[in-house]
């Protein structure tokens, strides 16, 4: 049987079709987890620590339980199983016990007849704390061995030295994913000791395992169902209220709903790791990168979450998409009493990119070379080895092409408009046009695709042919990125059918699809969908001796040999397929190995207008070229690019969770600034289609690259406009206007090289 792939007429791969859930979303009919209700439903609320570190002296639930309408109060004493959860390491108690380790850590939950009563009961619970000195400086944590992971990568000739040296220190603050939908879910007890949890998440099966393990239930006693997701960006990869909801439902015997409010959402999920980075780049006089040394300190906060993998990404991609002869990277993920850090779009890649791209600009200046020319001279590509891990790059990696494509794009004309909406400071009317200086900055970023370091990474899809068409059953989470659209397109092109629908299966019905993260679902669940749809088609054709399948049935030449009804009369056609990407290996002692399944690059050029006196900036335009392998839905790809760029721009100019002794000072949308329509730059994107070696139809994941180097490009443009060092993001008005916070950045020629280096 042939397995040649046909592209369906108009709605298969390559078509910019709209998303199948678009109309319900536009009409307000789409059910998010926060919209769910059940008969007799209670509301849950969480009691959280007001201290970053404290000893719990006592918990008195009596005042809460005495309130009319309160049904139960649960603490760690009520947890039946391991009582611990965590995505990579089960190191976090369901509720703090003994000592709280971060501000906002859950201490208890309550359930009551309505939401307001639940909130008041949570506030009425009496918890006596003895505050303790929190460890909030990751440098002290690193020195004292309070770490989640330490990585040392050594590759190439350690004695290699360049004649031109630049050094710098860089800092990235804590960014919030800020999905518009807060954490929410509905747990419904089954009456025989089990529970069904309807939840917005990124990884249904990882949540499932953490719930049943923490509560010592059998796996089939807990069933997790995908509910509508209001964005995620990494924030839903870890457990938030899943275990609490199931406990409350099992204890009360009634359905229980929880919805975090915005301020609780800020403490209810992990964040992008704040990072401090020290870099030393050495090049020869022609601009060839000889050696890069980097010291990366990531603050992982109180619990492990994904700190190990985030730090690993930062270290593996610490040198950027460049060839380097000699590399020495030291990375530490520190354990502190700050809020826990974990996954956010880019997953460890944006932080070093901000640093290494600033270094590349400084190196270009020290060499007297054009910054783009320096990048092209060192661009990493297929056939090279990743300079950190030594892994040969076998898939596509069009670094040169993305750089050249962006460099060739036309620059916008100088803006003479005096409309305040086109001026820094905007309708605040702070900035006259003559005070504006324009800057242009360039940056390139690289990241891995899917999971690395030997993780058993797979996704399952079951293809089921019905008389209404092909169903593709999956546990993959649709967070808004468009997995559902692309998987259906793959199903169409593989099967020949137009009527193809993604069906969300629960954890009892199908195996894991892995996480909707790491830019992986197009390739992983898409890969499984390709196999499942192909297998269904092949069986359909084989059964009646046909050569083509479509919505009418099976055809031989131009004759319909069986309608779908006739075809399925002789038995159902269903195929479960599990897709794995090429195997990866864990690193050896010096960080070497074939650690990644694939790589992706993107380049960004930012144009900014700055009022240097007031320190306000308007990001005018971002031009980008992105390595997409093959664009399965160009409309959706551009949507990912524009949305990802906006989050990168946000980190560059405004987004920061401000911490004071581990306490968030701005856990609200009033105080945590997010880009609005008026902050959004014009974006022009070029999609570079060089098919990769294992994604369906050559596709690569596209979600994260836009966020990686857009931050660096914007800050480079701001440096270009102002002449300031700007070694920290987000760049604040005082950094521009006053030059505050300037970690040392130096460049020196050979005669000034430090002794012994």
């Amino acid at each position, binding site marked *: 049987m042939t397995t040649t792939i046909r592209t369906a007429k108009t709605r298969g791969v390559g078509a910019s079709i709209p998303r199948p859930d*678009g109309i319900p979303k536009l009409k307000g009919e*789409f059910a998010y987890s926060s919209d769910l209700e059940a008969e007799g439903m209670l509301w849950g609320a969480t009691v959280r620590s007001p201290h970053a570190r404290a000893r719990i002296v006592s918990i008195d639930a009596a005042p809460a339980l005495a309130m009319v309408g309160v049904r139960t109060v649960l603490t760690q004493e009520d947890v039946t199983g391991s009582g611990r959860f965590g995505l990579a390491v089960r190191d976090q108690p369901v509720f703090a016990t003994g000592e709280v380790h971060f501000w906002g850590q859950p201490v208890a939950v309550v359930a009551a007849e309505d939401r307001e009563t639940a909130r008041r009961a949570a506030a009425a619970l009496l918890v006596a704390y003895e505050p303790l000195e929190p460890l909030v400086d990751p440098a002290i944590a690193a020195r004292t061995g309070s770490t989640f992971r330490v990585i040392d990568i050594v590759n190439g000739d350690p004695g290699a030295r360049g004649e031109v040296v630049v050094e710098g220190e860089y800092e990235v603050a804590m960014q919030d994913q800020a999905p518009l939908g807060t954490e929410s879910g509905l747990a419904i007890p089954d009456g025989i000791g089990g529970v069904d949890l309807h939840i917005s998440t990124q990884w249904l099966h990882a949540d499932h395992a953490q719930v049943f393990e923490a509560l010592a239930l059998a796996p089939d006693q807990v069933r997790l169902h995908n509910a509508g997701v209001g964005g995620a960006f990494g924030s839903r990869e870890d457990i938030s209220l899943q275990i609490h909801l199931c406990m409350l439902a099992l204890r009360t015997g009634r359905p229980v709903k929880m919805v975090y409010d915005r301020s609780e959402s800020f403490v209810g999920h992990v964040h992008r790791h704040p990072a401090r980075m020290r870099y030393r780049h050495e090049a020869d006089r022609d601009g060839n990168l000889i050696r890069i040394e980097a010291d990366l300190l990531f603050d992982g906060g109180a619990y492990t979450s994904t700190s190990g993998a985030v730090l690993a990404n930062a270290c593996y991609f610490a040198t950027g998409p460049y060839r380097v002869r000699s590399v020495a990277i030291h990375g530490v993920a520190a354990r502190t009493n700050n809020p826990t850090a974990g996954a956010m779009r880019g997953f460890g890649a944006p932080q070093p990119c901000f640093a290494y791209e600033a270094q590349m600009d400084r190196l270009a200046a020290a060499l007297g070379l054009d910054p783009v020319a320096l990048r092209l001279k060192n661009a990493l590509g297929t056939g090279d080895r990743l300079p950190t891990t030594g892994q040969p790059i076998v898939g596509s990696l069009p670094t040169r092409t993305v750089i050249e494509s962006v460099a060739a794009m036309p620059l916008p004309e100088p803006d003479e408009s005096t409309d305040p909406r*086109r001026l820094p400071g905007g309708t605040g009317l702070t900035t006259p046009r003559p005070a504006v200086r324009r800057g242009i900055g360039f940056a390139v970023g690289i990241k891995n695709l899917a999971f690395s370091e030997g993780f058993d990474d797979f996704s399952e899809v079951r293809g089921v042919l019905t008389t209404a068409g092909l169903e593709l059953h999956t546990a993959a989470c649709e967070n808004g990125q468009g997995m559902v659209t692309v998987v259906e397109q793959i199903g169409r092109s593989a099967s020949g059918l137009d009527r193809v629908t993604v069906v969300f299966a629960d954890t009892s019905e199908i195996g894991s699809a892995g996480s909707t993260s790491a830019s992986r679902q197009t390739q992983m669940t898409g890969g499984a969908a390709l196999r499942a749809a192909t297998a269904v088609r092949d069986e359909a054709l084989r059964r009646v001796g046909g050569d083509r399948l479509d919505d009418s049935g099976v055809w031989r030449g131009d004759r319909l040999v069986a309608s779908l009804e006739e075809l399925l009369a002789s038995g159902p056609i269903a195929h479960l397929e599990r897709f794995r990407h090429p195997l990866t290996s864990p690193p050896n002692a010096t960080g070497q190995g074939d650690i990644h399944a694939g790589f992706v690059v993107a380049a960004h050029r930012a144009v900014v207008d700055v009022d240097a006196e007031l320190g306000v900036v308007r990001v005018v335009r971002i031009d980008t070229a992105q390595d997409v392998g093959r664009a399965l839905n160009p409309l959706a790809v551009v949507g990912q690019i524009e949305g990802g760029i906006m989050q990168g721009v946000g980190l560059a100019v405004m987004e920061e969770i401000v911490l004071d002794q581990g306490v968030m000072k701005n856990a609200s949308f009033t105080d945590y600034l997010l880009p609005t329509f008026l902050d959004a730059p014009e974006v022009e994107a070029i999609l570079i289609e060089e098919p990769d070696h294992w994604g369906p139809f050559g596709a690569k994941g596209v979600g994260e690259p836009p966020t990686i180097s857009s931050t660096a490009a914007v800050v480079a443009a701001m440096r270009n406009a102002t002449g300031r060092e700007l070694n920290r993001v987000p760049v604040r008005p005082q950094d521009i206007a006053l030059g505050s916070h300037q970690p040392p950045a130096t460049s020196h020629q050979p005669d000034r090289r430090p002794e012994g280096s």
Partner: protein
Amino acid sequence: MIRLSVNGVARTADPTGAESLLTVLREQLGLPGAKNACEQGECGSCTVIMDGELVCSCLVLAADADGTEVRTVEGVASADAIDAVQEALLDAGGVQCGFCTPGIVVAARHLFATKPDPTEDEIREALAGNICRCTGYGSIVRALAALAAETP
């Protein structure tokens, strides 16, 4: 007890003291289209039209909605249809997770009702109270600018 018109239908509700119009719409009147994302009037996900004015329903005391006419996203189009704003957003890729979408639909319709051919700057300013975390706004601006260009 409050009486109000919602999407042209007379409704009554019984809010507790401090409940917002948003809570009443979602939890008493069975209209979950308006979303709760910040409860501070910063994000616009709960946007509805009250007596012809665009409001963040999370900031409106339910008692103050007594006697008003409210239009929510559920009242934008009939059950089996979508209106021009919704269609433009769909085709341009202006919906991703969709949590901001009801608020954007309501705000954009209000903009076109008050100014049928807004410029791009006017579109951006009119929607500056609606935060979208997914799209980066470009597709939404393109959708609405194209719609404005079609306006005779």
